[in-house]
């Protein structure tokens, strides 16, 4: 079967073209570097089936980041390249196109974002571009699907003109000649979005805008999440699910092992979805009733920010600050993604250039960036004691994140490279693509999280019934009680935190801790060790040696933070 590669500069819409040609669902956003590993799907070209591969964006065929390296390695395996270029930025995009035309693989050019170019007053004569390059050129608007059929029908016409290799300066001269020949510009005024884009990076207007965006995002996430819980999920669980569980409880008889695992313990004769801790009570209520609403609201807000194009502008504003932590502004994008789930956040550090940066960024994400599931549980359970405790947890995590960043930057050898980044124009998010992205992230959460939450609840019950629970608690008592001021059983919650941190907070919530103890416990829990999914991705990205270092840093800093917080709160 033929392999067709989608290649092009970052943020030209390759993933959107991919989604159109395969019908597959992929995540695309309005900033460079969304795709850091290749995705493949099936498509039909002519009458033949073919494999279509969505390759991470590259500016050049000489890689400068891990994501670009993936792209260059893929090129050797492809039978046809569909070079996706941004029509509104022809000059820059042609640099890669000309490099591709020097290779042996046949090429078709998709002149994407045709609508954007028209808005910017740019007209391109596709026929003349085709003649100049010697390969088919098809105008497309991938996000709306325009021109995609035409592109598919012309893929078999791909050609390899095998241009003679040029030097950099010869290539730019050639690009200048081609652009002058095929492109004409008409004068037009700045649009509102362009003015807003510029205002977002100029410090006097950009900083107030950033503060507003962050406060608004936080407020919207909370409002939607809490609204869903109060008006939909709690009524469902209390009104519909609980009566069913009571019937099942009577059937299984309280006190038996089966009842303990399925329903859990009854609290004053009642099923308490947080405290009962059975598979079908707490095991379902934590992921579906407490976490899912916040996952949904977080990814709606994040999706809007991503697709609008705000994140690279925040990266520009924070560049100076991030340098003190051995990173540059771009590192804020993986960090924000980590607020949803640490796993995609850590994967996104692949857009950073050096190993040193990736180590710092990944370590800081797993220590200082609580995922949405953990945050939802902290709001749900610690929030009952008062918002200031929740605020305190965030403040401590932020301080640790910043202080540890500075420390690592001082201690680790090497320097951090400087920011070089393309700033995409602001675009109004396409609702269909946004809805699809939110849907994909939600289903990924359900598929990956729910089984592990259930496993976590099962493990807790088995530990309890076999008596291992007590032995583990007694063994860790000195650390838990003396240093952290927590009851010794809290160690089991910490251990379960390795499976899922939301379940662990659920356990802490069932322990009747004081507000101060709960604050210490969730802070330590957030920092001390990655959950299993994060652990695996850290190991893959950093290797054993650096993972070991990273975990030592986590353990040490969480104990220090926990002990200080304990001393301060009691």
């Amino acid at each position, binding site marked *: 079967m033929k392999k067709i590669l989608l290649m092009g500069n970052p943020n030209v819409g390759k993933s959107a073209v991919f989604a159109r040609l395969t019908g597959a669902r992929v995540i695309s956003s309005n900033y460079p570097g969304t795709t850091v590993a290749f995705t493949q799907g099936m498509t039909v070209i002519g009458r033949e089936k073919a494999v279509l591969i969505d390759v991470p964006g590259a500016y050049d065929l000489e890689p400068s980041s891990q994501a670009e390296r993936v792209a260059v390695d893929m090129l050797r395996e492809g039978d046809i390249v569909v070079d996706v270029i*941004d029509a*509104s930025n022809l*000059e820059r995009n042609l640099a890669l196109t000309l490099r591709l035309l020097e290779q042996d693989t046949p090429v078709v050019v998709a002149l994407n974002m045709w609508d954007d170019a028209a808005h910017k007053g740019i007209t391109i004569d596709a026929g003349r571009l085709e003649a100049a390059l010697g390969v088919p050129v098809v105008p497309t608007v991938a996000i709306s699907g325009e021109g995609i059929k035409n592109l598919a029908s012309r893929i078999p016409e791909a050609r390899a003109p095998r241009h003679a290799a040029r030097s950099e300066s010869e290539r730019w001269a050639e690009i200048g000649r081609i652009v002058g020949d095929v492109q004409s510009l008409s004068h037009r005024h700045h649009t509102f979005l362009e003015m807003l884009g510029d205002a977002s990076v100029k410090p006097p207007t950009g900083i107030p805008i950033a503060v507003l965006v962050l406060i608004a995002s936080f407020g919207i996430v909370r409002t939607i999440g809490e609204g869903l819980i109060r008006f939909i999920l709690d009524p469902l669980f209390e009104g519909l699910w609980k009566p069913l569980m009571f019937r099942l409880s009577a059937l299984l008889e309280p006190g038996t092992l089966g009842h303990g695992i399925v329903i859990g313990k009854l609290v004053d004769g009642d099923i308490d979805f947080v405290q009962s801790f059975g598979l079908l009570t707490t095991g379902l209520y934590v992921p579906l009733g407490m976490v899912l609403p916040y996952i949904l609201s977080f990814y709606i807000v994040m999706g809007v920010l991503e697709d609008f194009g705000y994140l690279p502008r925040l990266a520009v504003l924070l560049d*100076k600050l991030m340098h003190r932590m051995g990173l*540059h502004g771009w590192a804020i994008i993986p960090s924000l993604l980590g607020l949803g789930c640490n796993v995609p956040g850590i994967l996104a550090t692949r857009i950073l250039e050096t190993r040193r940066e990736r180590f710092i960024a990944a370590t800081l994400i797993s220590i200082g960036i609580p995922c949405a599931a953990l945050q939802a549980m902290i709001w749900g359970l610690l929030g009952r004691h008062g918002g200031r405790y929740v605020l305190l947890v965030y403040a401590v995590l932020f301080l640790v994140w910043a202080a540890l960043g500075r420390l690592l930057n001082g201690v680790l050898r090497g320097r951090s490279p400087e*920011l070089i980044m393309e700033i995409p124009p602001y675009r109004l998010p396409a609702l269909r693509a946004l809805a699809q992205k939110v849907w994909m992230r939600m289903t990924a959460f359900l598929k990956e999280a729910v089984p592990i939450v259930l496993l976590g609840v099962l493990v807790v019950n088995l530990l309890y019934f076999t008596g291992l629970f007590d032995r583990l608690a007694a063994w860790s008592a000195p650390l838990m009680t003396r240093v952290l001021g927590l009851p010794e059983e809290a160690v089991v919650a910490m251990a379960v935190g390795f499976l899922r941190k939301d379940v662990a907070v659920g356990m802490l919530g069932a322990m009747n801790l004081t507000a101060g103890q709960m604050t210490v416990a969730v802070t330590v829990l957030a920092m001390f060790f990655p959950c299993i999914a994060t652990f695996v991705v850290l190991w893959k990205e950093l290797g054993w040696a650096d993972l070991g270092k990273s975990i030592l840093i986590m353990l040490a800093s969480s104990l220090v933070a926990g002990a200080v917080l304990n001393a301060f709160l009691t």
Partner: protein
Amino acid sequence: MPETPGQANAPLTLADLPPRRPALIIEVHGGWGMQRRLQALGIRPGARVTKVSTGFRPGAVVVGIGGGQAALGHGIARRVIVEPLP
């Protein structure tokens, strides 16, 4: 490298260029890797840029180039020599 902008004879860099000012890139100082990455965004001798902004104390520089915009760390912006255009 000149530390004080606007000195007589000191070449003007992208970092010193005032906002909204168009300019022609004269020279890019730096290693091969950096030159290549800048080139990929269209920042190369002979290209026309328009300054958009400089961050605080001093921070990243944003320029309009070709049909788009690019952000450069301050250290890099100081190594891009420009000549202001009217």
